[in-house]
């Protein structure tokens, strides 16, 4: 019984994640974007905890704490600091207008579900739909990275993708081995730092974080 309850919880959280992904896709303001990202982390933590509780796998608790620290607290904080230091409070321009993006996103979700169903059929774990949702949100974050014109949202999109992957790892399977999760977390952290450093360099060199400035290297 508890299993089914927890599975319902996890599915709920999964749906919430998907919603968040769409929200990020639609979001125009950087600060809100970061908030959404933090929320995503929180949802991830929650689902991980539920999984840990349901399956009683110890290392999932660790990874939950890791997620909490890293993705709910540390990285959002870093991003906040960054945009404070860089004084970037502008709205985000997108390459394609938002509604079109949303439509594409919905298409992606359907595609991802269609792709994931045969696999979910055989999923022995207590969460069937989650794999499809994870894949969908991965693709959505990808889409977000494509359509954003500024550097910071792109990076947030990348981190969101990382989140979705984590979600896939924890919900579809019983979580990756701890050593792997640690390694991935380390990479993400270092990556974020490096991104941060890059923001400053780019700002210094190009007087803006608009990646449209960075189209010099090409074949002519």
């Amino acid at each position, binding site marked *: 019984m508890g299993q089914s309850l927890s599975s319902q919880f996890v599915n709920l959280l999964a749906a919430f994640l998907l919603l968040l992904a769409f929200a990020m896709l639609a979001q125009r303001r950087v600060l809100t974007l970061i908030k959404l990202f933090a929320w995503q982390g929180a949802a991830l933590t929650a689902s991980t905890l539920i999984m840990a509780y349901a399956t009683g796998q110890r290392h999932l608790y660790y990874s939950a704490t890791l997620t909490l620290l890293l993705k709910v607290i540390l990285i959002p904080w870093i991003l906040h600091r960054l945009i404070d230091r860089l004084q970037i409070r502008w709205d985000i321009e997108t390459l394609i207008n938002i509604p079109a993006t949303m439509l594409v996103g919905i298409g992606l979700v359907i595609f991802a579900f269609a792709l994931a169903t045969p696999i979910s059929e055989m999923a022995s774990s207590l969460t069937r739909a989650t794999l499809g949702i994870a894949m969908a949100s991965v693709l959505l974050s990808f889409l977000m990275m494509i359509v954003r014109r500024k550097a910071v949202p792109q990076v947030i999109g990348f981190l969101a993708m990382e989140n979705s992957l984590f979600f896939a790892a924890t919900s579809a399977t019983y979580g990756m081995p701890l050593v792997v999760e640690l390694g991935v977390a380390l*990479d993400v952290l270092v990556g974020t730092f*490096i991104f941060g450093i890059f923001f400053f360099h780019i700002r210094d060199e*190009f007087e803006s974080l608009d990646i449209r400035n960075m189209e010099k*290297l090409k074949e002519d």
Partner: protein
Amino acid sequence: MEIALVLGFPLLGGLLLALVGHKRWAPELNALMSLITLVAAAALTRRVITDGPMTALEEQFFVDPFNVFLVALTAFVGFTTALFSRPYMRIEEHHGRLNAARLRLYHSMYQLFSFTMVLCLLSNNIGILWVAVEGATLATVLLVSLYRTPASLEAAWKYFILCSVGIAQALFGIILLYFAAEKVIGPGGTSLLWTHLYAVRDQLEPTVLSLAFVFLLVGFGTKVGLVPLHNWLPDAHAEGPTPVSAVLSGLLLNVALYAVVRSKVLVDGALGRNFSGGLMMGFGLLSVVVAAFFLSRQKDIKRMFAYSSIEHMGIVTFAFGMGGPVAAFAGLLHMTVHSLTKSAIFFTVGHATQKTGTQNMADIRGLIEQSPAIGWGLALGTLAILGMPPFGVFTSEFLVLTTAMHEHPWATPFLLVALGVAFAAIFGKVQPMVFGETNLRRLPHAPALVPVFVHLAIVLMLGLYIPPYLVEWYRQAAAFIG
């Protein structure tokens, strides 16, 4: 034991060089660390040749002919590149393009990079392999952006974003793999270990694995530089310091390809049919053709050779895609000779660009008059990479072509046309750089050209005669792959 050394010393070196900062002897220390790594790798190789495959540290690491030969190659090229970068970086400093802090970053990152490379190769755990590849990306991103010029920043940014995203796809693939493996092996650490996965590969769920392979291919393929995922590669090669270009072409691409091949073996075992092979052949062929046509438009010398790397990676991918012992053998051989030749070329190119102060091929002329060693190095290296006999590249390309002609005749015209176009493009551009009139100034430090000729000598040797143990070793690896 040797594994610990091979892994430990680059890490140690990286930390050490990061801590001590840029001393006068930092380059020597860098070279020394690489040397020790090389020695350890050699010892490891001997061990494997004598005792055969082995695992270590409750199976977290394992060595078989396939990866040990790449480890040896990596260590070797790493060492020679360190030798080359010693004077190169001094000259850069002398020209005022780099300062102490940057050099410190460079040296430590160089060591960390080679650490991640070796980790990728030796790790038995796909997750760790992924972590290492991502780590390599992070390290090289810093190296590519070393000059902090707008161009280098742009290149590094593209490299970072594209590769991180790609690698993320790979992670998803790994998760799917784990998802499938879990069913068979059960939860826990072991179900991500290559060795265990191979053991049970025919029981793994085909649909999941094919899906996983797509993600893995796109992910690691981005790092291999397969068209159309290649866009980061020319920029990163052209804008980073030349030693970095050398290791990117010589090592990173190989390692990424190594990951792809491992997953291919796994998936083939599960699917039975040659689904992955077809994909790899397609990507390989596309890369070869597209890269060849890119070549003829290049103005920047490093960019041109970057495209040539794409082309050759395409050839190797195609070879592995075809499968079968001969093709696999050819692929391994081509990996070896390509990374040796290409790094040698980048060494000479580096010094040439330093001499002329430009990477624009139109401004580089008459190297052979000014410094015969550089000129000859570039000329011979180019001939080698273009697959002129008797260099080793010819042997491998010949094997690939003949196998293709035998098993997939439709592919050979594309390959031949691409090779022809590439030859015309590169040779036509390099020839005036080597010969022709010039007035160049002397370099403040004597260039290190020993590595160039060592590499070319080995490539030549491999073209004329492959030592029996090396053959045996390739055979085993090929048997494992094909």
